[in-house]
């Protein structure tokens, strides 16, 4: 049997499909000019694949993406947004930055993604709301469990929110598809259950266990479906995920 290799692949999990539906809905609403809801909210625990999904989508569709840094001031944030929008020289004043961003966003037919926005409380949410109000552009906010709560607290932000999407734990069927697409190996039901339990819904752990599984199959010269024993070997060395 030839050596089994792990090929990094962007797998269409249930979360990815839900994300694409959200983006289609947001862009459709923008293009048709219906309603004022131009904010999207993506939230979920760490390790569910939010950032990776959004970054992949943004890279493939040429969308600006910003990951906030804890030491940033409002000006730093606006200047970074200017640079991401291709504004050559970002001004040194907040008002001027905002004006230039609004001008560019009005022309740009692409959503803007802002990651880890919840760590700044209401401050950046208000900026995002002002931008969508002025330009009718689309901004998608990404964060952990606190983000939808923060948005709901601010009625002006919440009334402009199109939809919130929770990135759910990775399901057993997602794991089967992931292993199949990345390695070409087929998992039986028991092996899937073992990998699912070991991952605790964390996509990073699924990825690590899939790499281990490819190594185990190659070194043990196994063929056919992956059974429970092999799945246990693959999950054994890693840290056990928590539900």
């Amino acid at each position: 049997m030839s050596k089994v290799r792990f090929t990094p692949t962007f797998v269409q999990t249930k979360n990815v499909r839900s994300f694409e539906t959200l983006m289609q809905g947001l862009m459709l609403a923008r293009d048709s000019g219906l309603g004022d809801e131009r904010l999207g909210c993506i939230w979920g625990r760490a390790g569910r694949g939010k950032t990776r999904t959004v970054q992949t989508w943004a890279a493939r569709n040429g969308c600006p993406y910003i990951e906030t840094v804890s030491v940033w001031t409002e000006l730093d944030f606006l200047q970074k947004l200017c640079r991401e929008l291709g504004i050559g020289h970002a001004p040194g004043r907040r008002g001027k930055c905002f004006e230039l961003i609004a001008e560019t966003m009005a022309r740009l037919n692409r959503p803007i993604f802002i990651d880890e926005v919840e760590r700044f409380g209401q401050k950046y949410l208000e900026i995002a709301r002002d931008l969508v109000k002025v330009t009718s552009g689309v901004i998608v906010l990404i964060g952990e469990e606190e983000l939808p709560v923060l948005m709901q607290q601010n009625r002006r932000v919440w009334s402009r929110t199109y939809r919130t999407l929770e990135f759910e734990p990775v399901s057993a069927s997602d794991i089967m598809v992931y292993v199949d697409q990345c390695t070409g190996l087929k998992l039986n039901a028991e092996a899937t259950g073992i990998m699912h339990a070991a991952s605790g819904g964390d996509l990073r752990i699924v990825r690590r266990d899939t790499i281990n599984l490819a190594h185990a199959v190659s070194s043990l010269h196994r063929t056919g479906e992956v059974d429970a024993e092999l799945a246990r070997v693959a999950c054994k060395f890693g840290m056990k995920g928590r539900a």
Partner: protein
Amino acid sequence: MAHISFSRLVLDTANTLLISKDEVSADDIYKKLKIRSKNDRKRIVWILSDLTLAGRLTRLRQGNYGPGVQPKPDKHERMWRVLRMRHRIQVDDLIEMAGVSKDYAKQWLRLLVRRGIAVKQQEPGMKGTWCLIAEPAECPVDTDSAARLRKLRLQKKNRERSKEVKVA
């Protein structure tokens, strides 16, 4: 100064002409770029065909083009965006997120290291990681490869021509 490919020049010219009118003909582009020779005109026709296939321009009728649908980023730009988003990447990240081949990703990362835009960090026996250390405003373009490919195409063309002469 950033390198501008000939196809980018044709696209920019078409887009400039499309600001003032709804459609642009191949003749308009020849005139604007002061193209007279038959070979150069042929080259532009091929480029226009490629741009239409890529969705950068729309073919309205024979020889007439309109504005294209909003273009999606090419492989270089996708890789550049992934690097800027993550700051530290491995070849696997580029394969998965930018949808490029392993060799292409490695070649592009080597270019970044040569230009001083990224540094490679690698422990013995481990996979290499590339860190972004400088952030130029524009996506770095591999002009060396383009020049090498042009040279190869020219060599191939010359070989074919010499074969034709021999047959004749």
